[in-house]
């Protein structure tokens, strides 16, 4: 089956259709300008809903039946319960029991707890996943065993796809730590608190049918609501939506590895000496051990200089919460929380504000929060000599990570990737990334334990640290050192078959992942 391919603006060979639907090849950053109007769900009529506002139905199965679950539907879930989610698998258990086939699962992210879904990919209950996949799911897809083609999108890209009509959600099943009978819901309260529900907002507004599932039914109104009951068809009350200790880490910890700490220290030092760090900066750092260590170093620098970050964008951790509480950060805008300190902060601190990815990340909207950020700390599995980044596959070709907000965050003013020069034996800097997820023109600095490479396009940054005494090196030089230590790796080998498409933030196809040659 020969699907015609073209070479896109990033030089990657991509198909013109995926899962029998036409797609647009990547045209360059900011080049694709779609015409037309955004999509919306069908028009509901309130007289179809209970006048007393009570939308509670007896079971999830009942709700699915009433939503008209049938073959080929697109089912969305969100990932705020992370690895502790008990509901998304149940949806497919029920669907399988009802004999429904060829479903499309459209999660905002998947976790190891979703590995049991492999059996439904095998037996045809699920045709494909359009979302991130890790571990065994990624391996399953890489080996060409999923019937449909996976589509990987960033968090903002997912909202873009929903709003632009690239993906029409038939049924959104939205777990909520607290909800009322009308469907108003929030991420706090109850015993399965996850903090915020930012990733579920678009699903609630654009899906044909919306089911809210909670284990904590509260009196109307559930307030402050992140999901509004006017978008909700049914409410289901269950014993347990999640396993609390797997929803958020009890506590997130900075890295103890001396090598990672060194990278964090160098990164902080770069931020200081380049002048990027200043009073009023805006920043985002992830929940990885190295990012957290950078946050701690930055916090200390702000404190010493008497400066304050205007706002930080979450995922929040206790280290960000400490900045907020100790006066080195004005606000936390938060799309997801990673630990218990953050859950309690978002519940109690009015300056810790739930903020949906909708407002933050969507490229097809009237402004983008990430382009307002001064400092963006991100990871990558590979970076190439043109500073292109890969976050979804490893150098051995296997799909192992989702994109998350990574692509969206590339639009920040200073995108900095603190990375070890090699992991175990595998060099991180390569001639050409195995899978292209982000164009090098948006990636500014690579900080490794053996030196810092600045993208030559950023002449201003190059100039700012010229006499700083920092260990500045060319990216070619770093790559050469890694290979002199590790040896030059062979390349992963692939079949022709496409197993996954990687969407850019604007919905165009930036690259594809091909089946592993075993």
């Amino acid at each position: 089956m020969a699907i015609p391919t073209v070479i896109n603006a990033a030089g990657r060979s991509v198909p013109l259709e995926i899962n029998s639907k036409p797609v647009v090849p990547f045209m360059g950053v900011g080049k694709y300008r779609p015409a037309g109007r955004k999509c919306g769900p069908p028009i509901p009529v309130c007289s179809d809903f209970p006048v007393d506002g009570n939308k509670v139905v007896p079971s999830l199965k009942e709700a699915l039946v009433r939503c008209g679950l049938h073959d080929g539907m697109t089912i969305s879930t969100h990932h705020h319960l992370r690895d502790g989610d008990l509901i998304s698998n149940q949806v497919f258990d029920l669907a399988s029991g009802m004999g429904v086939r060829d479903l499309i699962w459209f999660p905002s992210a998947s976790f190891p707890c979703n590995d049991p879904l492999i059996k439904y990919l095998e037996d045809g209950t699920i045709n494909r996943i359009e979302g991130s996949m890790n571990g065994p799911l990624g391996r399953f897809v890489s080996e060409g065993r999923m019937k449909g083609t996976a589509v990987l999108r960033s968090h903002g890209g997912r909202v873009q796809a929903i709003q632009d009509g690239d993906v029409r959600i038939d049924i959104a099943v939205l777990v909520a730590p607290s909800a009322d009978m009308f469907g108003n819901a929030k991420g706090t309260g109850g015993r399965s608190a996850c903090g915020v529900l930012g990733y579920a907002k678009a699903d609630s507004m654009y899906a044909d049918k919306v089911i809210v599932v909670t284990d904590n039914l509260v009196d109307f109104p559930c307030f402050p609501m992140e999901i509004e009951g006017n978008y909700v068809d049914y409410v289901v009350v269950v014993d347990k939506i999640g396993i609390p200790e797997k929803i958020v880490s009890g506590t997130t910890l900075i890295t103890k590895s001396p090598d990672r700490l060194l990278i964090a220290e160098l990164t902080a030092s770069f931020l200081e000496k380049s002048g990027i760090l200043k009073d009023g900066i805006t920043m985002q750092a992830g929940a990885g051990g190295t990012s957290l260590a950078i946050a701690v170093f930055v916090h200390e620098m702000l404190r010493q200089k008497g400066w304050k970050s205007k706002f930080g964008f979450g995922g929040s951790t206790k280290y960000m919460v400490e900045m907020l509480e100790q006066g080195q950060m004005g606000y936390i805008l938060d799309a997801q929380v990673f630990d218990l300190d953050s859950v309690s902060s978002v519940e109690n601190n009015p300056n810790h504000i739930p903020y949906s990815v909708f407002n933050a990340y969507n490229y097809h909207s009237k402004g983008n929060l990430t382009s307002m950020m001064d400092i963006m700390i991100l990871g990558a599995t590979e970076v190439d000599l043109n500073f292109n980044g890969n976050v979804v596959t490893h150098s051995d070709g296997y799909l192992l990570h989702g994109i998350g907000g990574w692509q969206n965050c590339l639009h920040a003013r200073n995108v900095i990737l603190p990375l070890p020069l090699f992991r175990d034996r595998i060099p991180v800097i390569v001639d050409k990334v195995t899978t292209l997820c982000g164009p090098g023109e948006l990636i500014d600095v690579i900080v490794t334990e053996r030196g810092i490479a600045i993208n030559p396009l950023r002449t201003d940054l190059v100039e700012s640290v010229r006499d700083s005494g920092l260990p500045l090196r060319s990216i070619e030089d770093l790559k050469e050192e890694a290979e002199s230590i590790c040896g030059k790796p062979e390349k992963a080998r692939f079949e022709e078959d496409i197993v996954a498409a990687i969407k850019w933030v604007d919905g165009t196809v930036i690259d594809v992942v091909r089946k592993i040659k075993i």
Partner: protein
Amino acid sequence: MNNKSISGNAGPKIRSDCEMILQLRSESGIVIDLKSKVQVLYGASIRKLCTDILVFFGIRDALLTVNDSGALDWVIGARLESAVKQLINTDLEFLPPFREENKYQTTSGRFRFSRLYIPGNAPAMMINAGLHSADGIILDLEDSVAPEMKDEARILVRNALRQVNFYGAERMVRINQGERGLKDLEFVIPQNVNLVIIPKCEDPGQVRLVDAKISEIKERSGFTNQVHLMPVIESALGVERSFEIAKSSESVAAMAIGLEDYTADLGVSRTIEGKESLYARTRLVVTAKAAGIQPIDSVFSDVADMEALRQNVLSSKALGFEGMGCIHPRQVSVIRMGFAPGNDEIEKSVKIVAAYEEAARNGLGVVALGSKMIDAPVVARAQKTIDLAARLGLLSDKPVNESNPEEK
């Protein structure tokens, strides 16, 4: 004779290492069963390396099982050589290339503020050891290596000295005591070791034996680099004889004290304030300085308490010590900055040297700064402080020393 051997390490927590299970056979050639985290990227090169090594040792028929967790070639080589040497008697060595960057020498008077101990059988810790700016990296064959792993560690350390770039840190090895230590030297001396640490030293004869053995190896291998010695005093007898030990050889560049064993020898417990070892420490400072070598303090074992370490370094410096051991990379910068001269000290030194040079230009024999006369040792010490400050990057904010514009 046994025909099966095991070397190296494998398991879920092991990184950058591998396990070799070698079984000699009488026919069917070399069969390699490789399980590796990096199979796709390095599988073929690992197989080729293993085959080359087996052929090098004259092995034609064997089943080799490799459980690899991302080991570098020099680690794979060391592990396989160890497995081979458990089964056959040979003096052959399968040496990885010697990196050009590793050919530097060090002077006996160089700074030795921080020396970082790396266990001799832990490849994952060796690879990045040089990144933490320690003055010296010690590949330890003694206490940090389990007795049954000693032979393997020698080969691993030998290969590390050839292949791992320590980025200018002094290349040190701590050998074992006695005969085993002398045998250790055979493995490491030809690999451009800059300094050998002699543990539990309580007799100048021990130092002379090591020194003689090093000379013998150097002569035999035509190797001319200088190898410095650092005896470690770890007993009451050692303290009593520390002056003789310090003077026992021209090669002795520094002398350290090891307080864990010393306090055990005394039968007292080691405390943070260290009253129990004050005599030994001050005695060692005096004997070392009397012999013209560097006195080096013991390691500080609480790796989590950086503030206590900082206090410890300051008191150590105040006693006259010129360096300290580190058992964790994060200790390096604390120790380095602790031994660094303070701002007042730097400023005063700059003034002294400037006054001296001014006087020299004017042909004056006597130098004075304010009301104080300055003699040659004072100037020398001031110059040393300035050099040190420059090396530690502490001079950048200071007014440029006009007498040394070429140093900018």
